[in-house]
């Protein structure tokens, strides 16, 4: 390969030669895993190091850090990071999106874990300017959870424990998949928001969890994580179950319009624990177990 790379430099301006040169040069660029990896905001990853003060501004990454054994070094979290129980004792620094930059800097962290969003780029820049390492992560799918766990494991110098966390979650998910295999798979409509009506598409870990737990997401054909849909379309797809959070699901049975759905009229509205199932964190396995128990009572003891 190196011979080709070398000879391509001698190519003249003739168009077909240029094309060949471009192809050869492209083949010569290092494979993706040789390049320094980037985080989900497109910034270089911080170097692996034992971290003594970490601010984690994302419920899922806070869970992961505690699972990695770095929980005692977490010195800041968002208002929504309530699991595990010990995380509640960490100082609350507000929101995950557009965090209070000076509160975070004031905690003197050596690593800030951010939710990767365009709205957080200014905060990431400000932390780097204050010589604080930053890693921005975005977790929508189970694969992204695994990737984020491995990246965080490397960043806080706990790669072995990261592997263990990933393997354990994967193991539980496989057990759930095996326990529900071969059963009839009911169709499920996940109600994530009422006005506008929003559901879960295949881009979300929730859709994956429903499939693993032996259900079929009626809107799995939509690629976005949380697409907007029309009520008529829900009626047309006639799901076997409606799955929602405790506040929304309980109201459906008395709602005239929702009662047009056979699933609602016949009482097949399932209530999930949104604090457990709603987060792509280390309890993904547990979340799958709870959904499997809802769809297939008795499938998992």
């Amino acid at each position: 390969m190196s011979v080709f790379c070398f000879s391509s430099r001698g190519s003249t301006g003739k168009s077909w030669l240029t094309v060949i040169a471009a192809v050869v040069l492209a083949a010569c660029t290092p494979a993706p895993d040789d390049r320094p990896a980037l985080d989900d905001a497109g910034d270089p990853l911080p170097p692996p190091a034992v971290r003594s003060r970490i601010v984690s501004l994302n419920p899922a990454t806070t869970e992961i850090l505690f699972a990695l054994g770095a929980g005692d070094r977490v010195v800041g979290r968002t208002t929504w990071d309530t699991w595990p129980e010990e995380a509640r004792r960490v100082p609350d620094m507000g929101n995950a999106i557009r965090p209070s930059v000076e509160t975070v800097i004031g905690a003197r962290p050596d690593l800030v874990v951010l939710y990767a969003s365009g709205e957080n780029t200014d905060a990431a820049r400000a932390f780097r300017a204050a010589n604080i390492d930053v890693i921005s992560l975005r977790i929508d799918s189970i694969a992204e959870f695994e990737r984020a766990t491995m990246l965080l494991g490397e960043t806080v110098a706990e790669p072995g424990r990261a592997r263990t966390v990933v393997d354990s979650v994967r193991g539980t998910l496989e057990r759930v998949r095996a326990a529900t295999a071969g059963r009839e798979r009911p169709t499920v409509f996940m109600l994530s928001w009422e006005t506008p009506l929003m559901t879960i598409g295949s881009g979300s870990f929730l859709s994956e969890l429903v499939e693993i737990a032996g259900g079929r997401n009626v809107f799995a054909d939509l690629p976005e994580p949380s697409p907007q849909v029309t009520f008529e379309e829900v009626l047309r797809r006639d799901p076997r179950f409606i799955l929602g959070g405790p506040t929304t699901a309980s109201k459906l049975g008395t709602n005239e319009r929702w009662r047009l759905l056979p699933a609602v009229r016949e009482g097949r509205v399932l209530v999930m624990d949104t604090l457990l199932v709603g987060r792509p964190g280390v309890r993904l396995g547990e979340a799958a177990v709870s959904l499997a128990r809802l769809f297939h009572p008795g499938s998992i003891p």
Partner: protein
Amino acid sequence: MTLRVTLLVLALVVVSLAALALGPVSVDARELWRVVTGGADPVSRAIVLDVRAPRVALALLVGAALGMSGGVLQGALRNPLAEPWLLGVSGGAAVGAVLAMSAGLGDPSFLSLAAFAGALAAVFVVLGIARASGLRADPRVLLMAGVVVGAFANAAIMVLLATAPAEAARGALWWMMGSLGSAQWRDVARLGVVLAIVGPALLHWARDLDALALGHDAAAALGVAPEATSRRLYLAASLLAAATVAAAGLVGFVGLLVPHIARSLVGSRHRAVLAVSALVGSTLVVGADLAARTTRAPAELPLGAVTAMVGVPFFLSLLRRMR
């Protein structure tokens, strides 16, 4: 009058120092002094000099620019309700920003560029409508054109927001509420350059505003061409407002309220009104931003909402006294 101006300057200095010292992380006076003289703890230094100082500086400039812009528009259009937001600038800027966000181009510097471009586009559409209407001598035409363009922009924003992904919609909403949360020295420099060019020009044209205030015929008799002058002033004031939008999103009410306060303090001569509007606007926005980031710390309130909440009672008491 000199005493009043001295007190205003003093108020601005006090509010600015408070804004540097106060925040979710407390920095006491001694530490603040060490930050200025060197030798402070690097974390306090970073918080005061890199996070708070650009924010306070940008608040100063945004307030000054909006105050002046409102003062000029109220004078040029001879209408006490005239302000940059009523005249299409905000609508155009918001369409630009929301378009950029829903297209996934939410990068902050691109966003300010899009907002600035949108504001300028709206201003030229307003001028175009006024020119095409044929009612050139009537200052109400600019006002009506501005309101119409603003209404159209609102409709466009609603369509964009309804179809945008959730994250873009939230970002757009936040932007429309105004914030100095991501202020950097780069933003301060950009707005500073615009203000340094347009501000002195507006002060220079203050005499034209005094002439326009006498009515079109009197102005013409004094050698001021009414239509051309009010168009030129409208353009300059809108440019100033557009530059603030690019830096801080929509910060409402300052342009409407501040010139009225200024007139109640120094009378109706426009040079004094504009200079005092800049001073009062700065004090109001620096103070409002301080409230926005401390009342619910570490979370922040939208700056535009705070300026209106502080401003409305003040405005009402002013109206009572004018009766």
